[in-house]
């Protein structure tokens, strides 16, 4: 991908059908669940059982990256109680399965989020909250937030809304559970396969990849 800003953005006029098709091809997320055919019929019994366990035990990394994090306490506590689906918090990325991107990501956070994502162990899933992770939302002209998260991390489930209500958060989790059960949620593997593409995208935004020395344990 060359860095051509005007390729997809036209400020005047409506793009033609051809342009739209081309933009969609260019902009299709690398890691989608659509291409992976590993459904219930083709799964071996062991895989089926493991997927069942994975589905019902989702450890969510306690990282509030944006304002959607305010609905996470509500989702986890008494009225909505996500723990009945086996969803619980995990303190460190090593123990977590699900990374919630709760809203916009500033470039400074993106750098940490990528680091955190790479620290997580496979199989791992990413859920993105809110319209600002889908197309920038109300921050479409902000100089410090990224606009489309799936250029930088493989997203399994998007939850629309600003901000998503606890009900939709739980709905998103259930969607993720379906994907896991059907063997379609393989973002971590896809990320490793397409690492060059993701790295290229990430490096366009993040100028300096170095962390402080004490950070590198």
């Amino acid at each position, binding site marked *: 991908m060359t860095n051509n800003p005007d390729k997809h953005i036209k400020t005047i006029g409506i793009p033609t059908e051809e342009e739209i098709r081309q933009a969609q091809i260019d902009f299709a997320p690398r890691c989608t669940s659509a291409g992976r055919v590993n459904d219930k019929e083709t799964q071996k019994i062991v895989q089926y059982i493991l997927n069942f366990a994975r589905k019902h035990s989702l450890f969510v990394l306690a990282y509030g990256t944006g304002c959607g994090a305010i609905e996470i306490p509500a989702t986890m506590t*008494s009225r909505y109680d996500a723990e009945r689906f086996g969803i619980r918090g995990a*303190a*460190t990325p*090593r*123990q977590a399965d699900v990374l919630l991107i709760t809203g916009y990501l500033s470039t400074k956070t993106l750098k940490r989020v990528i680091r955190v994502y790479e620290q997580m*162990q496979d199989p791992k899933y990413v859920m993105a909250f809110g319209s600002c992770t889908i197309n920038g939302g109300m921050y479409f002209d902000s100089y410090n937030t990224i606009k489309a998260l799936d250029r930088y991390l493989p997203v399994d489930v998007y939850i629309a809304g600003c901000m998503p209500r606890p009900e939709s958060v739980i709905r998103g989790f259930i969607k993720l559970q379906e994907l896991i059960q059907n063997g379609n949620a393989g973002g971590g593997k896809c990320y490793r396969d397409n690492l060059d593409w993701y790295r290229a995208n990430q490096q366009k935004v993040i100028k300096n990849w170095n962390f402080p020395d004490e950070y590198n344990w």
Partner: protein
Amino acid sequence: MILTIKILGAFLTAILAFTVGMFYGGLRRKITARVQNRVGPPVYQNFLDLLKLQAKETNIAHGFMGHIAPMWIIIASMTVLMFIPILHNGLWFDNLTFKGDLIFILYMMVFGSLGMAIGAGQSGNPNSAIGVTRGLAMMVGYEIPFVLSLVAIMIQFHTTSLQDLMQYQHETGRWIIMDNPFAFLAALLSSLGMFRYSPFDIVGAPAELASGPVSEFGGKYLGTMMSGGAVFAFIKLVLFVDIFLGGAGNTDLQGVWGILAGLGELLLKTFLFYMIPVFIGLVSPRFRTEQAIRFFWKWPSILGIVAILWAVFHPIQ
């Protein structure tokens, strides 16, 4: 024949300890949820968690001790388990108990934590290092009343054998909690520290140290540690029931029914005892490290000393 039963019994003990420990963990989560106005996860949730953790891939290494530490915990827990008489009657759950095993158990229970300490130290995460320091400091705190109370029992009954204690309780029908209540209280208070539930969950305090020593362990390592922890929880519960609450298997039934009745008795007693730290944990904030140590060195230790004095003046032959 006896050897075969012993070996089979050892396997059964391991499975029993693991299952009960994990199941109690699930029950704890369920009860916690109910207290907190929630539905809570199913009681078998911990098994699913374990299965998932074991199914995770691992693509990091934290050195040799990082691999050994979870094994160390499992080995330590299994070793201790083998020296604890689960039931009073029957050969099946006797395992390797011998005279003087109380001192041995005291010694071995620290072993698992030490293994974890070394493993966590190797991971290089400062949270782990601080967590380990806290854990060792805590151990210094709660071991003192615990040892004092066990010493009181040893003095009072002139034995260091769990079998003898259980035999005494079986024959007289008197639980040791009645013979030396102070020892029980001291041990109970120190057991709060052993379980590391809320007032004393300072080792892996999430808001302070991420998750402490296990910060860098995920997937299979965490799963293995979790199973080791479940077995350890079972060990602690059985130990307390054996020493203070009359042990299990005191019925006159023979054969399979005797064992089943014994197991039922064991589960009932352990569950009731387990609820004490769980419910205290539900309503308590966490102590700071030095506050926790000060707590253990104050009333529990005083109770332990009183228990020794009591034991000296009320010896039971």
